[in-house]
């Protein structure tokens, strides 16, 4: 669902009431101009007329900004009015200019960016008078909508000058909320006359397409389980798992450092890509180059699967769980993969709040089920592998593969066990395995 469609369907059902003035308040960098421009783009696509009054930037700068999002505003229905902030002495003339422009252009939507700059040199009383008597009456008479952007200094709790929120019909607050190591953007709606707001609090992110609100996947979307299996990339492991892993399932591959979890992921994604199935390898730990180097060491030629295998390296420290999910969702929607490997759960865990991460993994599970993506996630385990950590991940997993090592004499021996494989008659034995230059070799004894 597109961002503004979501805003007007789910967050504010039926959109902004006609004849209303909406205050959009936010700290610098929260995306106030982007949100209002995304709304302008949405309305322009529906044949409406937009009057954009900017006191913050000249037209050329604004147009460059919106072009970054691929928006091409129809010149006959979009008018950009650039003004500078004036004092009381010239405010009447400025108001006259705005009113004249409104009367001539007859817009459906007026955006003022920003009301803070418009009123920076004058008394708040004039602000109230302008909003209520001049702009307010024109908007109501025409049945149009006005979006008034207001700056909120970082750390300040009050909205605007303390007058705007009383004369407007709706208030949308955009804010940064600190969560662990990172900040996330949150939209709140404390006031919206004539609209029932069921959930007044949404996280959003700024993407190449504008603003994307985080949408919780619909739970009932997948009624039937996928019956098709895909290869793990290791034929002996496929046999042990009764023919591979189901599409739409989550497989946790857990083990100590150095047991070969990433190698299993490489085989999983590469083998499916070789079979002509799209696969995605997502790493939070290593660079794309180091994965390519590992592939070369196993004799894999990336060029041969370039069209079907996508390797993505993300840095979890700078992302909220929601952002990570949205990025994964974007990759999935763009590439439509059958197989996906995520390396690793721990690198996410180290940078995210536990509850938020559990929620994200739940959304991930819903998404992979809906899209039929066989997903493998690596999990690093400290100490003995028999003590599998009780994370939200292991509870949600359809399959759990344990990798461990023992010392036998002067030799390190790697072992593999299928701990769980939902709806499959899987092997319950512990097998010895080795990682050789020709791949993963699993031995019967």
């Amino acid at each position, binding site marked *: 669902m597109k961002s503004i469609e979501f805003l007007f369907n789910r967050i504010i059902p039926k959109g902004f009431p006609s004849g209303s003035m909406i205050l959009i308040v936010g700290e610098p960098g929260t995306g106030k101009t982007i949100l209002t421009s995304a709304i302008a783009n949405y309305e322009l696509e529906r044949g409406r007329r937009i009057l954009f009054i900017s006191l913050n930037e*000249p*037209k050329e700068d604004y147009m460059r900004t919106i072009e970054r999002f691929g928006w091409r505003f129809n010149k006959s229905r979009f008018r950009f*009015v*650039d*003004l*500078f*902030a*004036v*004092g009381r*002495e*010239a405010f009447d*003339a*400025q108001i*006259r*200019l705005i009113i004249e*422009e409104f009367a001539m252009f007859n817009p459906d939507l007026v955006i003022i960016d920003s009301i803070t700059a418009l009123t920076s*040199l004058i008394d708040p009383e004039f602000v109230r008078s302008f909003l209520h008597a001049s702009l307010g009456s024109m908007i109501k008479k025409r049945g149009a909508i006005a979006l008034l952007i207001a700056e909120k200094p970082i750390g300040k709790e009050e909205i605007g000058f303390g007058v705007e929120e009383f004369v407007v019909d709706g208030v949308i607050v955009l804010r940064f909320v600190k969560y662990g190591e990172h900040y996330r953007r949150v939209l709140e709606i404390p006031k919206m006359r004539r609209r029932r707001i069921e959930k007044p609090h949404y996280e959003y992110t700024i993407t190449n397409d504008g603003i994307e609100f985080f949408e919780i996947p619909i739970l009932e979307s997948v009624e039937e389980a996928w019956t098709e299996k895909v290869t793990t990339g290791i034929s002996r492991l496929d046999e042990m798992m009764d023919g591979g892993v189901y599409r739409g399932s989550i497989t946790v591959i857990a083990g100590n450092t150095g047991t070969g979890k990433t190698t299993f992921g490489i085989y999983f994604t590469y083998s499916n890509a070789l079979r002509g199935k799209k696969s995605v390898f997502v790493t939070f730990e290593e660079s794309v180059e180091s994965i390519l180097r590992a592939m070369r060491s196993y004799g894999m030629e990336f060029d041969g699967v370039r069209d079907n295998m996508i390797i993505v390296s993300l840095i979890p420290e700078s992302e909220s769980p929601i952002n990570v999910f949205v990025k994964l969702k974007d990759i999935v929607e763009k590439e439509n993969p059958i197989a996906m490997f995520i390396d690793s759960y721990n690198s996410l865990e180290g940078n995210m709040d536990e509850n938020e991460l559990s929620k994200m993994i739940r959304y991930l599970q819903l998404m992979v089920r809906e899209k039929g993506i066989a997903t493998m996630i690596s999990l690093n385990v400290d100490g003995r592998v028999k003590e599998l950590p009780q994370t939200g991940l292991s509870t949600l997993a359809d399959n759990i593969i344990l990798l461990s090592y023992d010392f036998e004499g002067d030799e390190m021996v790697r072992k593999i066990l299928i701990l769980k494989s939902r709806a499959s008659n899987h092997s319950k034995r512990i097998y010895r395995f080795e990682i050789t230059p020709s791949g993963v070799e699993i031995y019967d004894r």
Partner: protein
Amino acid sequence: MIGNPEDMMVEAVKRATKRANPALEKLLEVHLRLNANSGFELAYRDPKRFKDFVNRLFGEYSGRLLEMLIVDEIKRMLEIGEDLENLEKAVEILRMIV
């Protein structure tokens, strides 16, 4: 007392910029010196060119706003209630009256 029409226009531009925003006067003055090799007298000598430079600096609508304020100042100085539409018309009137 300002008798010279060009001086009157320069004064009107100064008053108008001050009225709009105290920071604008110097900004516009430097902009005109650097780009038009002229001062505020350009508003009298070539009002269209003056407006082009103002628009380049402030944008079309801010340019219009400043024009409205300059015309307003001319009307005050001449104590006329005449409906002056633009800077060109104001210059015409100045040339006739003074």
